């Protein structure tokens, strides 16, 4: 049996960590949504488990997504995680090889060089030792980047690293110390016993020149063990809890679990998986264009973890989803925010008794629902009507006289119960019409119809619908040759995954210019209804910055497909801002005014109506 008193801190840390982790894992699994456990049971023996393993390798060890964000930052994460992982694996293999026994004391591989001071290494052991030295070097290089980054924040990509709590600082200090201490301890032992490899041996020999290593080495081993023990005990109380949790998260996500309408054990796992990498800070326009450096998701999750979350902070977020798109852990951040708002929901009397009784309003094939905001941009609704007529569609303008809100704004503010009343009202009204398709001009309504209305009806945003009309040759916009740049509305793009349809529409008649931050990375127009408490000046700053950014594409027109985006951008843009419905309608009008073109376009009939 190998033993020395200094193994105790490490061993104690290991046991405490295991117990705490088991306790937490079980608690989270109990808190899962009903049905989730069944889902896991049915998926656990499928290919999805292998996929999860692959993802764990790529994300938790290699940190592919962080690499994509920034190479140095990715290297830092990879060398620490993957290097450490390999140290454990090879350490285990080395002891297996050396003793020929499967089971050794849990601390034996960690302190292998202390227990086995045999200088006469042969064959495989030389290779093992060299590999271990190399891996140690790899981890140390990651630590160097981490330390540099702490003192020179700009160095590894992100402009702002996150502020840390006391527990985090302690864990961080322990983490930084572990590997330098390991180097010292192993080198010291190598210095007098000669069991080192290409790094530890020369370093040990060097120290041996002026230090009494025989006596000193035990001190280093003690310190190494203490730092390991301290780190492991601090894991459950610091951000490093994300390491064991993320692995669990990846499995559960691959087994099709997600955060739905309620905060469940899975949501808790998501929160705990945040590594505080800080990538969400720089993507957040409230920080890059506004002056808000406190409400980003990383702080929001941290405050929640430490039970210090304030409603003002929870409310202050555009729910634009830029952070969700960038988060390397893949946490559904916007949903997290909504669910915390839901917890703060008001207990007030129900106020929607005034909603009119649903009455049949005439049959139609297609229902057009403009949405509240579109009523403030009559250009959009007029254009849509023009297009419906041109395409000879039997349509019904459901909210011609004004809308009952789709309910999503209330839901975004966490008032789910109140929102349900509005949803139910509109839903009945839509179903009564007997239409097979509903088209809306507002991405907020669109997302709401798709996700909350549960209707047996096709739900289309007008950008999809226009694309369909063009493809079916119901309308034929005339090429204008104008250059346009497209602004992706948050709720339509990141929110609903509609990126290509509006671009296809534009490509039919205009020259579409690319811009660097588009699609998943598109900026938010700043007008978002998701943020209740942003100060007006900051909202304006974001609106302005986004408008100016779009102008850098030097297109003749900025196109978008959301009334709110249009309004937000138009205030600050010198380039005209148009909804794609307006552009399509205008290109039809051109045909009407130039009958000569008609022969080429076979749209005679259609244009008469226009």
């Amino acid at each position: 049996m190998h033993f020395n008193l200094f193994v105790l801190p490490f061993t104690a840390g290991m046991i405490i960590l295991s117990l705490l982790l088991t306790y937490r894992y079980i608690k989270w699994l109990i808190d899962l949504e009903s049905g989730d456990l069944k889902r896991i049971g049915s998926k656990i023996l499928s290919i999805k488990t292998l996929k999860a393993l692959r993802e764990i390798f790529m994300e938790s060890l290699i940190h592919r997504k962080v690499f994509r964000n920034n190479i140095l930052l990715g290297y830092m994460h990879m060398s620490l995680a993957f290097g450490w992982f390999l140290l454990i694996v090879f350490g285990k293999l080395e002891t297996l090889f050396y003793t020929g026994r499967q089971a050794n004391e849990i601390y034996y591989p960690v302190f292998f060089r202390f227990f086995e001071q045999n200088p006469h290494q042969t064959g495989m052991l030389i290779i093992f030792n060299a590999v271990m030295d190399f891996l140690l070097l790899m981890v140390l290089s990651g630590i160097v980047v981490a330390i540099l980054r702490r003192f020179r924040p700009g160095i590894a990509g992100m402009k702002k690293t996150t502020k840390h709590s006391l527990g985090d600082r302690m864990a961080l200090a322990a983490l930084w110390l572990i590997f330098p201490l390991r180097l010292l301890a192993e080198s010291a032992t190598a210095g007098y016993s000669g069991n080192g490899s290409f790094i530890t041996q020369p370093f040990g020999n060097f120290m041996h020149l002026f230090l009494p290593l025989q006596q000193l080495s035990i001190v280093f081993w003690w310190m190494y063990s203490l730092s390991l023990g301290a780190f492991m005990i601090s894991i459950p109380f610091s951000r490093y809890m994300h390491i064991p949790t993320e692995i669990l998260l990846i499995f559960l996500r691959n087994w099709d679990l997600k955060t739905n309408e309620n905060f469940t054990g899975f949501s808790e796992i998501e929160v705990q998986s945040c590594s505080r990498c800080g990538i969400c800070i720089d993507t957040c326009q409230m920080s890059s264009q506004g002056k808000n450096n406190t409400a980003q998701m990383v702080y929001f999750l941290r405050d929640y973890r430490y039970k210090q979350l304030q409603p003002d902070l929870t409310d202050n977020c555009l729910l634009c989803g830029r952070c969700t798109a960038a988060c390397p852990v893949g946490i559904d951040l916007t949903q997290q925010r909504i669910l915390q708002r839901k917890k703060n929901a008001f207990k007030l009397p129900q106020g929607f008794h005034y909603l009119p009784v649903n009455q049949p309003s005439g049959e139609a094939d297609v229902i057009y629902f403009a949405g509240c905001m579109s009523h403030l941009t009559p250009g959009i609704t007029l254009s849509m009507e023009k297009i419906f007529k041109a395409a000879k569609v039997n349509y019904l303008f459901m909210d011609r006289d004004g809308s009952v809100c789709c309910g999503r704004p209330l839901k975004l503010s966490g008032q789910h119960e109140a929102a349900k009343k509005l949803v139910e009202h509109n839903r009945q009204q839509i179903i009564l019409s007997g239409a097979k398709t509903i088209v809306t001009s507002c991405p907020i309504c669109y997302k709401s119809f798709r996700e909350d209305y549960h209707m047996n009806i096709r739900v289309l945003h007008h950008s999809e619908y226009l694309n369909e009309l063009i493809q079916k040759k119901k309308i034929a916009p005339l090429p204008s040759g104008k250059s346009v740049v497209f602004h992706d509305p948050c709720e339509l793009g990141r929110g609903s995954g509609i990126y290509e349809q509006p671009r296809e529409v534009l490509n039919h008649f205009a020259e579409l210019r690319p811009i660097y931050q588009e699609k998943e990375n598109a900026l938010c127009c700043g007008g978002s209804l998701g943020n209740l408490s942003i100060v007006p000046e900051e909202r304006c700053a974001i609106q302005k910055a986004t408008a100016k950014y779009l102008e850098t594409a030097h297109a003749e027109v900025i196109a978008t497909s959301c009334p709110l985006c249009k309004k937000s951008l138009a205030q600050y843009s010198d380039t005209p801002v148009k909804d794609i419905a307006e552009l399509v309608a205008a290109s039809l009008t051109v045909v009407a005014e130039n009958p000569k073109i008609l022969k080429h376009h076979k749209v005679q009939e259609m244009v008469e109506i226009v």
Partner: protein
Amino acid sequence: MKDWGYSILKGRQIDIENNDFSISRFVAQHEPSFKWCIGCGSCTATCSAARLTGFNPRKINLLIHRGETTNLAEEISKCMLCGKCQLVCPRGINTRNVIQNIKRALNNCHAL
């Protein structure tokens, strides 16, 4: 007391001494733009709820400023939070957050 020949209509009287300004203070503290209102009524003109019922965000603002808060909870719950008022407000007031904070203030006193 001298009779000047005038009388006070109870309904038009603003009773500064006895009115409740706590909500007004709470909202102004949490959403300072609340104080910028000039009572132009654009919000009410465009309001989605006002089209269907006697809801009136301008009036609510005014009454809160005056400390007249009877029936406020029922009234404010009529808002759909659609945000039209915010887009038309010429003063750039964060109207939705005003409404949110009125609700929060009411919620807090109910909780007490």
